[in-house]
C-alpha cells in the first residue's frame, strides 16, 4: 500500500540511550478515496456527451416567384419517379410526373422495409434510366429524378427516411414538393380500393 517505509528494518540501530519515538503507521486506507473516485467517474460518464449530434444537410430548390409552371416541369417524364408519403409510414409511388390530369398513373404502395421497400423501387428506377441511357433514349446528362411529396398525414421521420434513401441510393436529383389535391384524392381512392382505413 502507499506507505513510506519508516520501520527501521535493516537500517542503523540507534544507540541504547536514544529514545525511540512512537511509530505511527503512515498507511492510509485508500478504499473510500477509490469509492469517491469511481462515484465521480460514474457521474461524469452519465452526463458527458461524447458523441456529437450528426446532421444531414439539405438544399431546397431555389424558389423564384417569376418561375412559371412550365419551367418547373422541365424534367423528362421517363427519368422521374414520384413518391408520395402517407400515413402509417406508407409510401405510394408512380412512374413519371403525372402531368396529364385525365390519365392518372397507377399508384403502387410500399414502405420503408429493408426488403421490397422503396429502396428497391429506387434502385430499379436507376437501372432503368441507365439502360435507357445506353440505348440512346436518354442523353448522358439525364439522371434519375425523385420527386418527394409528403402529404399532410405523413410524419417528419418519413421525410428524413426518404431523404436518407436518396443518400443511400446515390440519387443526385431529388426535390421535396407539395402534394397536389389530385394526388391526395388518388391516395384516398387507392386506400379505399385496397380496403385500408
Amino acid at each position, binding site marked *: 500500500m502507499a506507505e513510506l517505509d519508516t520501520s527501521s528494518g535493516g537500517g542503523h540501530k540507534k544507540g541504547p540511550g536514544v529514545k525511540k519515538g512512537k511509530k505511527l503507521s503512515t498507511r492510509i486506507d485508500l478504499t473510500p478515496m477509490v469509492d469517491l473516485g469511481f462515484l465521480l467517474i460514474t457521474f461524469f460518464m452519465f452526463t458527458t456527451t461524447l458523441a456529437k449530434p450528426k446532421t444531414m444537410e439539405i438544399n431546397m430548390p431555389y424558389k423564384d416567384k417569376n418561375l412559371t409552371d412550365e419551367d418547373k416541369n422541365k424534367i423528362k417524364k421517363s427519368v422521374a419517379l414520384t413518391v408520395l408519403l402517407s400515413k402509417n409510414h406508407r409510401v405510394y409511388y408512380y412512374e413519371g410526373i403525372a402531368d396529364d390530369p385525365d390519365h392518372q398513373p397507377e399508384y403502387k404502395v410500399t414502405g420503408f422495409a429493408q426488403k421490397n421497400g422503396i429502396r428497391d423501387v429506387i434502385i430499379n428506377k436507376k437501372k432503368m434510366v441507365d439502360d435507357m441511357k445506353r440505348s440512346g433514349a436518354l442523353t448522358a446528362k439525364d439522371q434519375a429524378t425523385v420527386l418527394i411529396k409528403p402529404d399532410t398525414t405523413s410524419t417528419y421521420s418519413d421525410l428524413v427516411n426518404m431523404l436518407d434513401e436518396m443518400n443511400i441510393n*446515390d440519387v443526385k436529383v431529388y426535390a421535396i414538393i407539395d402534394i397536389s389535391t389530385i394526388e391526395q384524392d388518388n391516395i384516398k381512392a387507392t386506400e379505399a380500393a385496397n380496403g385500408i382505413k
Partner: protein
Amino acid sequence: MPHAKIPRKSTNIDMTAMCDVAFLLLTFFMLATKFKPEEPVVVKTPSSISSIILPDKDVMLLTVDAKGRIFFAIDNKLKRKELIEDLNASKDLKLTEAEKNSFALGASVGVPLGQLKQYLSSTPEQQKSMDATTPGIPVDTAVNVPTNELGDWIVSARTTNPAVRICIKADGDASYPNVSKIIKTLEGYKIFKFNLITNLKSIPQGTAAYIEANSGTGEKK
C-alpha cells in the same frame, strides 16, 4: 496426518494502483465532458446515414417536439444578448435589463412574443412548467405576416450573426405540415440550405452509398 500448511496471506490489497486509474479516468471524463444544454422538450430524432458533425458555433437550433411546438435556441451568450436587444427594439417588447440577461443566460425559448416578458421574468422552475404547456413559437405558411413569429426570430438572429447556420431538430413523430411550415418560412427568407439533426445509423449493405463508403479501402462489391 500432517496436513499441508497454507501460508496465511494478508487480505490487504494495494489500493494505490486502483486509485490512480480511478482518478486518471475521472480527469479524462471531467475534461472531455461538455454538459448537455438543457432541453425544453424531449425530442427523438430520426436516423440517417449522414455523418456530418454539427458545427460547434454559430448554430441556431429549432427544436420541434412531437406535437409540433417550436423552440428557438442559439449559441453564444454575447450573440444572444445582441439578439434579444434587436428583437426588443424591433418588436417593442419593453424588456428590462434583467429580462434580457435572463434570455442571454437561458437556453431554448418557445413562447409567443407576447408572453416573452412574463417568461423571462420567471424563475427557471416556472419556466420549465411554462415549457410544458406553451404553444411554442407561432409559425405560419405565409412569411411576412404577424402570425409568423418564427420569421422575426430568424431575422433577428441573422442580423446579429450573419454566419448563423440553421439546424432543425425535430421529433420523428412530428407531423409533416408542422415541419413544412418551418421549411416554408426559411424559404421565404431565402434560406435554402439548412441542416436536419439526425441519429447515425449504419449504411445498409449492397447499396450505392455502401459501395461508395467502402471503395476507398479497396473492398468492392
